[in-house]
């Protein structure tokens, strides 16, 4: 789960491996805010599978790659 300067850098780094999921860093920031937002909350409860999948879906991270299971 890394940051890259461009698609070219990702392709070179993959060196023939199948690509995973690529999103703009601004989308990553949104994802982090939704995913981690309650992590230090006093009333924290573990996220359910459905809650986590809903976060991905809400941000348009759909398709088999982004299915949690």
């Amino acid at each position, binding site marked *: *789960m*890394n*940051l*890259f*300067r*461009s*698609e070219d*850098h*990702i392709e*070179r*780094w*993959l060196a023939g*491996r199948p*690509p*995973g*999921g*690529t*999103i*703009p*860093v*601004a*989308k*990553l*920031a949104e*994802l*982090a*805010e939704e*995913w*981690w*937002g309650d*992590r*230090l909350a*006093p009333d*924290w*409860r*573990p996220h359910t599978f459905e809650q986590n999948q809903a976060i*991905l879906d809400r941000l348009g991270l759909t398709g*088999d*790659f*982004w*299915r*949690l*299971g």
Partner: protein
Amino acid sequence: MDQPDIDLRNATYGLFVDLGRAPTLEETAAAVGAPASKVEEGWRRLHEAHALVLDLPQAAIRMANPFSAVPTTFRVHAADRAWYANCAWDAFGICVVLGADGRIETSCPDCGDAINVEVRDMRPDDESLLFHCLVPAAHWWDDIVFT
């Protein structure tokens, strides 16, 4: 996950933030007023529940996501401290959980060039960067350290 384990988890996270590093078993036991053996049992249950990650077989914290207990290639300066994140996602997560602006320092895995991102109001200053996740979501927890 029962309430005592949630309380232990919250106390562990609180200590991580207060100390600026992962608390030891003994520090956590002292903080919660429980024997170290009980804290270790609780940590192991939290590890199984993916609520934190231990460096097994030791009872030492490896990850309290988004924080890393060990040095990584993701350094985050936020809330007047420097932290290690487990990955790029977690690097932004540290700013989120601390409710703070920050600076993420990492490098491009391809060319090795430094990548520095200023995070202000949870937004990156350089929106040209890309995030790549190699492992499909269904397998993130197969080997969370690799992921």
